């Protein structure tokens, strides 16, 4: 047995099972299913045809019912495995269904209609991935455009967020001035104001600045975040003041102190904020929806909404594109999870 399996199978009760072992297993397996189940379902369902999505009971894997073109019928017919009265099973194509009885036909002898009770037939299905769910949005819709818009908004907003917030945090942590605590308090107090409250005034500001229908109108209102200022300030407070004194003795200007001393040392907190910022901007829906009304400016999240029309929701496209929009966030989490855990531990945010 390898080290890994020995580690996994280790029990508190030694040879026998202690009750905590059982609780731990139930907890972990249950947690895995609860957390991971929807994601797995989403990933598999994104490969289903609209028909398979509407199927009841739903399945995890994307199945497609086999079809056959039978002579004398215009459309391809679905194939079923039917139990014949004599006990044998036969693959038949369904012509139509009337109540509890299906009219079926043997593809080899198309002329002869066989009546089968619907309880006696099961569809012939095979796993099949409907990749057109992915290809169609990219070829027929402007999905690449949306992707680019989202990337632009996310990257630009994150960079500006990091710079603006770190400058504010630097001033609030390293300069003594009257009203410093009050300024910090006011910044933190804005955390309590939800977007829906400031939406209308914000809209009129953006509109009067001529940023309506402009990606900058999405980027600029989000760059100054109280959370960011708070995270960075708390981190900068831990940078010893002696370093800054030393830099002053070393003839560094205040900008150099910020740019060459404080900012590099704040890197871990900046990484945390960058992750948060990327996730926030990437998943932002409401504000881009308000500011952007031209289709070529849509971000991914807004772009996704065009598949849900008033009468018809194209679930297969929504699911597929949701998977696509999740990929960057998942990558961020996979590669930067070390910073995220320290960030959550340090700030209590998630």
């Amino acid at each position, binding site marked *: 047995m390898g080290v890994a399996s020995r580690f996994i199978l280790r029990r508190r009760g030694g040879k026998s099972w202690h009750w905590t072992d059982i609780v731990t297993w139930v907890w972990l397996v249950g947690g895995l299913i609860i957390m991971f189940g929807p994601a797995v379902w989403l990933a598999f369902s994104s490969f289903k045809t609209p028909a398979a999505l509407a199927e009841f009971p739903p399945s995890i894997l994307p199945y497609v019912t086999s079809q056959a073109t039978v002579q004398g019928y215009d459309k391809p017919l679905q194939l079923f495995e039917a139990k014949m009265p004599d006990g044998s099973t036969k693959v038949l194509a369904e012509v139509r269904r009337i109540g509890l009885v299906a009219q079926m036909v043997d593809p080899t002898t198309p002329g002869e209609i066989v009546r089968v009770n619907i309880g006696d037939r099961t569809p012939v299905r095979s796993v099949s991935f409907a990749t057109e769910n992915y290809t169609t949005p990219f070829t027929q819709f402007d999905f690449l455009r949306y992707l680019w818009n989202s990337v632009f908004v996310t990257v630009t907003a994150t960079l500006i967020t990091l710079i603006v917030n770190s400058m504010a945090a630097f001033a609030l942590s390293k300069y003594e001035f009257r009203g410093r605590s009050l300024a910090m308090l006011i910044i933190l107090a804005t955390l309590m104001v939800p977007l829906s409250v400031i939406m209308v005034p914000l809209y009129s500001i953006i509109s009067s600045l001529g940023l309506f229908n402009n990606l900058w109108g999405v980027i600029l209102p989000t760059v100054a975040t109280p959370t960011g200022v708070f995270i960075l300030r708390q981190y900068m407070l831990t940078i010893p003041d*002696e370093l800054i004194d030393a830099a*002053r003795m070393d003839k560094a200007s205040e900008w150099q102190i910020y740019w060459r001393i404080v900012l590099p040392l704040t890197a871990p907190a900046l990484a945390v904020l960058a992750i948060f910022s990327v996730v926030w901007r990437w998943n932002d829906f409401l504000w881009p929806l308000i500011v952007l009304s031209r289709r070529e400016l849509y971000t991914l999240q807004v772009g996704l909404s065009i598949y849900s029309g008033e009468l018809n929701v194209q679930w297969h496209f929504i699911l597929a594109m949701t998977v696509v929009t999740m990929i960057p966030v998942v990558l961020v989490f996979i590669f930067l999870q070390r910073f995220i855990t320290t960030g959550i531990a340090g700030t209590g945010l998630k």
Partner: protein
Amino acid sequence: MGEITLTKIKKSFGAVDVLKDIDLDIKDGEFIVFVGPSGCGKSTLLRTIAGLEKVTGGEIEIDGKRVNEVSAADRGLAMVFQSYALYPHMSVRQNLAFGLENSSMPKAEVAERITEAARMLEIEAYLERRPGQLSGGQRQRVAIGRAIVRRPTAFLLDEPLSNLDAELRVSTRAELAALHARLGSTMIYVTHDQVEAMTLAHRIVVMRAGKIEQVGTPLDLYNTPANRFVAGFIGAPHMNFLAGEVADLETGTATLATAGGHRLLVPFSGHSLSVGEKLTIGIRPQHITLANDPGSLKVKVRLVEALGSETVIHADLNGEKLLAVVPGQKLISPGDETYLSVAGAPLHLFDRNGLRVKGS
């Protein structure tokens, strides 16, 4: 040149006065040590000289020029911090170069100065390392190197040895003294360790509660402390203080009575004492000897610290503590009664206000 003159320096943080009317002349090339207990304002005084703190009142002059309004960067001083304050994200070379680059010095000269300082401090081998990869002693050298490359008019050192272990502290102390002899620049050194002060300083400035208590050479302070505080602060172990009273005055000699009826004769050549005056008598532990003479001080031994070359005796003299350091190894154990003699010991007399009695 590195002459620094402080005139009536005041510094308050809000309602708290940290420095009260500090007057001090520091000569060029002098090694001066500020010493005092924690919170006495010695570090604040150093930071005001550096320009990191603004004075509330008074005047700072460097080489005759008033620098109150000059920023820290332009005073031409270099500082070594207690925590070394090395930039953790930069290599040793970058740490040394940072200050020079900021004054837009040509690259060739920067490199030359770094090489020179590195050779002087023997840190050439780890110029490319980060401070985190260095030991405490190595970091200390880099911190000093960062000051040296600047070629400052004066060095300010804020407890630079306090983060080193005891052994390294002794060797670094010697190196610092050698460095000062070699560079010949003014150095202002802050410490709370009086041994460092005694060994390094040309002159020691003893501070307490924002005021200068005494300025003088190490031996001046040791031999003629101006007041009880300085007497107790300089010298290890601390000076013994006994309560006493003037019993008799003759020309050239004063007779003092201590608790328990002992009489001590002190050479005295002034007129400031009067019979019956209450005094504090200071005796350094090193000046007390063991005696068999019943006429000496009879004490009860509380604790014996045998250090091999000498023995420290903690004794009790009629309820007053008395510490004696006697050479060699003695067969004394706690609980014993013994006699201690102060015959021939220089006695320091302090009046009711703790000031040294003139003429003693």
